[in-house]
């Protein structure tokens, strides 16, 4: 029988990872909601940011949190570049083309990383990598807690940005109705560019803050994109609040299923939930049915 | 008059919008009936209910004596009611011949026979020269003709035309009217929704007027032109009633 402290510990770990997943999924769902593009390379953008952060730490002893001042603008720019060079040209193509082209970007990033770093798992050791704070029956791992706090702050900041700022409102208008937004003067191509860049930056932020406690290889992106896709669908594609709830849910499900059921079934369980949701509530657990 | 199509007490609601309420009318053999009404009156919803895209919330639809309420669209098509779409939905990557032949395959199972049949239909609507052109390369009128041919190829006893004249230039409208007349003369009944009143007034023997999802008038084109209810429904659009 599993003790209560172990369960609490697992729930805490689920909360922390779930927050990071939520941030990754929000980047993905923002891009989909606005541009209607399913970005299969999204998880590999997380991976790319992990490698950049890793290199900055190894070569310049830059702490992953400090490296954000480089990583975030860099990936905003990378997102913009990717959009202009590739994504922009397929916005009006069918979904199958979206999937294949972004799969091409995924393969590009994966093989580039493999060429540069090889396939082995790599990690860094910061001063706080193994530190934890004992609170009652549980130990709070600091690196994970930090990643969760930053992720949640970023999710909050994004939500405020989308609701309060003029640009944020333009993004939401374009997501709701592209033609309508264009008619009332929204510069739709610019909004698409910015949304894609923001989505990429969200992936990069998540990638950077998990470096202190995660190992990176060219192949870790697959795990992230699967989770992001599932979370985005659970939350209702395009919904920021839904993605947050979905991220936490998947974090908990993952933590608890590794506790009670075989860890190798974790993905299967996540997908079984996903299939059930898609069949019965295709607009997501937390989304609303469209009339 | 034996009823080919009969719609009785049909209602359909979308969320807070009552798109159709208690709609009752019929189409007889070899008859051309028009459905008119201002934008949002429920014309296209009515078509969608008749052709099985939506099941009505209440009421019955019978076709050739069979109760088809709630049937899937392809079954209704096979029983003999074929519709065109308001916004022409050509199979973008398929040729004109392929598109029409898919309709023909409904009645003729072998490809050679269906091809011959489809070519005959293309001849009838004046698209034979375009047989190998892909749907996406067609002009507006060609798309409308293709829609007509696709529906006609399924061998219907009732043809439902959704805005076949909309978006056409006046001479093209004349061509379309003549074409529909020829088809009807071949023994096919026609139910026609039309925003271009000229077309529907000239084609139809009888017209059903919809407003806010209800039948507000029914009768010959002549009797309706001066009907105050019809004029009121079209208020603001009355100029087009000429």
């Amino acid at each position: 029988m599993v003790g209560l402290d172990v369960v609490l510990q697992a729930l805490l770990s689920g909360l922390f990872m779930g927050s990071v997943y939520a941030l990754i999924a929000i980047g993905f769902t923002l891009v989909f909601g606005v541009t209607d593009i399913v970005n299969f390379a999204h998880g590999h953008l997380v991976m790319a940011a992990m490698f950049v952060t890793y290199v900055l730490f190894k070569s310049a002893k830059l702490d992953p949190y400090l490296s954000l001042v480089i990583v975030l603008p860099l990936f905003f720019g990378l997102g913009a570049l990717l959009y202009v060079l590739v994504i922009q040209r397929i916005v009006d193509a069918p979904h199958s083309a979206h999937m294949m082209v972004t799969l091409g970007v995924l393969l590009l990033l994966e093989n580039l990383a493999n060429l540069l770093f090889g396939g082995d798992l790599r990690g860094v050791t910061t001063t706080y990598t193994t530190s934890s704070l004992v609170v009652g029956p549980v130990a709070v791992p600091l690196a994970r807690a930090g990643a969760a706090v930053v992720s949640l702050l970023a999710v909050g900041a994004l939500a405020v940005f989308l609701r309060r700022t003029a640009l944020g409102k333009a993004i939401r208008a374009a997501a709701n109705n592209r033609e309508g937004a264009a008619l009332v003067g929204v510069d739709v191509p610019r909004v698409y560019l910015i949304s894609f860049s923001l989505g990429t930056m969200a992936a990069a932020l998540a990638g950077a803050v998990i470096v202190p406690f995660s190992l990176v290889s060219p192949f870790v992106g697959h795990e992230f994109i699967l989770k992001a896709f599932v979370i985005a669908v659970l939350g209702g594609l395009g919904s920021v609040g839904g993605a947050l709830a979905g991220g936490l849910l998947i974090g908990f499900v993952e933590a608890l299923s590794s506790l009670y059921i075989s860890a190798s079934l974790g993905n299967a369980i996540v997908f079984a939930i996903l299939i059930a949701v898609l069949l019965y509530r295709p607009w997501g657990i937390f989304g609303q049915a469209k009339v | 008059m034996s009823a080919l199509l009969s719609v009785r007490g049909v209602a359909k609601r979308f969320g807070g919008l009552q798109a159709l309420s208690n709609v009752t009318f019929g189409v007889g053999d070899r008859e051309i009936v028009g459905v008119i009404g201002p934008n949002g009156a429920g014309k296209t919803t009515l078509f969608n209910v008749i052709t099985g895209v939506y099941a009505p919330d209440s009421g019955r639809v019978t076709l050739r004596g069979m109760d088809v309420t709630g049937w899937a669209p392809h079954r209704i098509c096979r029983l003999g009611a074929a519709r065109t779409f308001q916004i022409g939905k050509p199979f973008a990557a398929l040729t004109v011949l392929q598109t029409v032949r898919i309709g023909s395959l409904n009645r003729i199972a072998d490809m050679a026979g269906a091809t011959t049949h489809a070519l005959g239909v293309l001849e009838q609507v004046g698209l034979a020269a375009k047989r190998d052109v892909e749907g996406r390369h067609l002009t507006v009128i060609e798309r409308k003709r293709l829609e007509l041919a696709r529906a006609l190829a399924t061998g219907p006893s009732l043809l439902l035309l959704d805005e076949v004249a909309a978006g056409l230039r006046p001479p093209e409208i004349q061509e379309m009217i003549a074409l529909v007349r020829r088809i009807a003369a071949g023994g096919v009944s026609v139910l026609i929704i039309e925003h271009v009143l000229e077309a529907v007034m000239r084609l139809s023997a009888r017209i059903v007027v919809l407003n806010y999802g209800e039948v507000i008038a029914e009768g010959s084109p002549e009797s309706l032109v001066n009907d105050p209810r019809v004029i009121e429904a079209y208020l603001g659009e009355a100029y087009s009633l000429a």
Partner: protein
Amino acid sequence: MSARLALGLAALAAAAAAPLVAGQHLLTAFIVALHAAYMALAWNVAAGYAGQFSLGHSLFYGIGAYASTMLYLKLGLTPWAGMFAGAVLAGLVGVALALGVYRYNVRGIFFALVTLGAAEVAKGLADNWDWIKGPVGILLTMKNAPGEFFFLRREPYYYVALAMVVAMILISLRLERSRLGQYFLAVREDEAAAEASGVDTHRAKTVAIGLSAALTAFAGSFYAQFYLYISPDTVLVFEPQLTMMLGTMVGGAGTALGPVLGSVLFSGLGEALRNLPFENTRQVVIGSKLVYAILLIVILIYLPGGLITLGRRSRRA
């Protein structure tokens, strides 16, 4: 028409003669290319012709691999027969999946996601199923037993793979000229218009998935007999799915020759490079994958119909 037939027969003759001049390494590359072409053509039935963009075909591939292997190991049934049993099983699973998915009107990217999920669930189950040896996988013994689909040399595998591709091309061409194939195209282009043309779209989609699934299973059985090792990590992962998609989309979806062209280019060249005696093979292989990724993006942006459309354009010009 007869010119095309002559060209086809010439290509077939050249392919049949290839083992006479090719060494074992090159022959392996040919087999990999043919195997990829077959898989791509099988996926193409659902994705290319009927527009049902499944991302879960690894499931059917895995069923084929495990069915023929388990029937051989447990019942002594020759894989020549076992592969047909696998195809039937995969076809049934495909039909069941399609019925569920279409019953709830799951379309587009959601369809892609559900099928991907189905394959992931299957992998999770396979990893935890002791009877099929879980994640450890199953090793078949190398031997010479033609009656049981085991050969010591590569040539027989090559001819089997070639026969499979030829059969699959013929099936595709037959499909293109059949009522069912026309219905597939109608469903792909526009479901509402297809229904309005009298096409039972649910039925057409279900048949497309079932047929494509059954055909894909044969590839899984071939994989097991050729590599003599299967595990959830080799046959139930995204890799086979990726092979099918790359070949089909690069060559030209919804055509009988496009997937062959794309597969030969992508999978065949990759395998050939892997076996060339470079000083740093690893870098060359990864580098070539990098080039492929860029090619994939460029081709899909500028030639959305695939490489096969190049040939068509020049023929018209």
